[in-house]
């Protein structure tokens, strides 16, 4: 199953709210790490939590998983206020993560699942299943220190899904993985996902976010910049960019009543239309001017572009 399939499948699912964050603020002394942040995450969707380093992502996630409490505002999970019993329904993979170096893989996984309240016999079955899936079965009785870094990361992932959580929160899950393993993990993540399960992951790899997420939230300097479904976000930023290839454009591209800016790239021209300009108008003008057109395409901005623009503008 590809990530695209997952997204389409989940798009069809109803919009029960798994997580509702209302006006949370967290301060550390003078420093405000998160300021008046609100958002919702719906069941069955992949939610991308984006932002530059130091934006407040990890602080927010720690509040969601109940490690710290917000100074103001409230967090509701599965319709209840955050509590320690709800922690059993969350799988959390922190950005900074580790394993007990001298412990056997099986013992660590047992311990982590016990801490999530899973009885030993059930845990063992799950462990076998996931180690098999991760192609790490023969490492079961090995010590962590014998494993490569990539293998350790897979084990860490297993430890977050063993108890079959309803909400999976992954903080920078792909950092440090080689491209093959990133693909592998995306595939595994897709399998894990079912209708009722929700995934939140934070990343600054915009390409990955674009592939996986239905919804995104961008925060910067402790505050929300924008949020919503990926399609909506892209549409609202993608109206006035045209990628153009051809010849004999004449002076049309200098017409500042339609165009705010035209940038020549290798063999294409990137045309920024003025707000409110219909691309059709430009196309008509170009044809009237006798231009020969090989390509005329309305370009969606990449999430990367939006991210950079927003973060540097704020």
């Amino acid at each position: 199953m590809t990530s695209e399939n997952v997204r389409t499948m989940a798009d069809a699912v109803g919009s029960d709210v798994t997580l509702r964050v209302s006006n949370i603020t967290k301060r550390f002394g003078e420093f405000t790490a998160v300021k008046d942040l609100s958002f919702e995450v719906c069941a069955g969707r992949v939610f991308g939590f984006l932002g530059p380093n130091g934006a407040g992502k990890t602080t927010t996630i720690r509040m969601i998983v109940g490690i710290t409490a917000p100074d103001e505002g409230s967090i509701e999970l599965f319709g209840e206020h955050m509590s320690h019993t709800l922690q059993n329904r969350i799988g959390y993979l922190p950005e900074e993560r580790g394993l007990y170096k001298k412990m056997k893989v099986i013992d660590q996984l047992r311990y982590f699942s016990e801490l999530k309240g899973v009885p030993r016999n059930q845990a063992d079955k799950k462990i076998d299943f996931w180690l098999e899936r991760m192609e790490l079965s023969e490492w079961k009785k090995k010590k962590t220190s014998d494993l490569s870094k990539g293998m350790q990361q897979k084990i860490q992932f297993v430890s977050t899904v063993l108890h079959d959580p309803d909400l999976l929160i992954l903080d920078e899950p792909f950092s440090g993985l080689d491209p093959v393993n990133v693909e592998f993990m995306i595939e595994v993540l897709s399998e894990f996902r079912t209708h009722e399960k929700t995934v939140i992951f934070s990343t600054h790899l915009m390409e990955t976010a674009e592939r996986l997420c239905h919804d995104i939230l961008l925060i910067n300097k402790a505050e929300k910049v924008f949020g919503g479904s990926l399609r909506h976000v892209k549409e609202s930023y993608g109206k006035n960019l045209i990628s153009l290839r051809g010849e004999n454009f004449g002076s049309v591209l200098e017409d500042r009543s339609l165009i705010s800016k035209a940038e020549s790239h290798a063999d294409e021209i990137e045309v920024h239309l003025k707000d409110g300009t219909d691309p059709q108008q430009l196309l008509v003008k170009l044809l009237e001017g006798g231009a020969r057109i090989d390509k005329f395409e309305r370009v969606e901005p990449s999430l990367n572009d939006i991210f950079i623009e927003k973060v540097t503008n704020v």
Partner: protein
Amino acid sequence: MYKFLAVVRHEYKKVVLKWSFVIGTLLLPFLAACFAIVPMIIFSFKGEPTRIAVADPTGKLLPRIEQNLSADRLTEKAQKAARDSMVKLDATQEEKMRNNAAMFMKDFALLKVPQSESVSADLRANLLNRILAGEIDAFLIIPENFGSADARFEYRSRKGADFISNDTFKDAVNDAVRSQRLADANISEEKLSELSSAVNFDAKGIDEAGEDRDNEGIWVASFAIGLMIYLTLAIYGQAIMGAVVEEKETRIAEILFSSARPFELMLGKLVGVGLAGLTQLSIWVGSAAVLLGFLALQADLQPILASVPVITPLMIGSFLIFFQIGFFLYASIFALIGSMVTSVQEGGQFAFLPVMIMLGAFYFCFAVIRDPNSSLSFWVTIAPFLAPITMPVRILAETPPLWQILLSIVVNAAAIAGLVWITARVYRVGMLMYGKRATIPEVWKWIRQA
């Protein structure tokens, strides 16, 4: 509760299944057994009897020497030596070995050299030849003027290095000469022992019931108990600190905190490692009991056992209780330090503080042993942090009234409650602080705010 038990089990297994634990646990009783039993076994290999030809021209000394070397006499001497070895702690290693060895008397076969052979070069050459031929092991030529001060007893042995035999034999000869001199002075053996008997200095401690008890050995046992608790606390305290720092360093703390309450995690850690320590102590106490039981079966060793203080179940019980109290007190401090620092090395710099307190408590043990009922002893066995080490020693030296023991337990339990509360607060914040060591003002803020 399920999670708490999971933490306890995890921490317990982590300590107990380590090689260092297994080795440490088995090694100590093994070493103790080696020190206690092996010399006895080795010295008890009785070789062939030492054959000594004695030329006694007057014929007066040989019977006395024979008598001094009789089994009864040697046993008596051995028992005296055994008692001395328990009491005299400052004895040199050589003395101790002699004393140990003296418990296992040597066999001697005395051969009388015919009277006719006078003391001459011929006699000496003859005896030397007999040694070289292997007929005898040694010879002693007693001078005729054995009573005078410049008399020379000539003893030659091909087992010159067997100092045990040599010493024993020398003592026997000495005693024989002395009693012969007395006899010559018309003082009978009975009269002598009557005249030279030591005063009967009946030095015995009395216990709380006013009954006699034996002081010998209490000093040693108290010292051993104090040292054992001190060492175990230091080792397990450091183990806790290591475990805390590991979870902080590897960032496992974040996963743990997203699964269980910090308090559960910390308390589970303390209980788990504490049980591991208790396991080790129980094994040690158990093997000590087995060792004593084994020794009790050896009839030869009765004199040693007579000096071992009476251990009551109350003593063992309070020993284990105070060990646990001490463990929780010191382990909380070590956990506190662990959650403040960023590495084990950094923690080591702070660990001197609890270790100093422990060491202080250990030194107070000497004051307690010397005078278990002084007011100093009272206060140091009630005071938090000191009591876990000093109280078991005091109980062994002279059991204080029950209310004092209970008071000590209550005071220290209150200290534990306060300390665990503080540690839990520092733990939950400190464990998520990476990269820099917490300062004291910061820690103080966490305690007040958290």
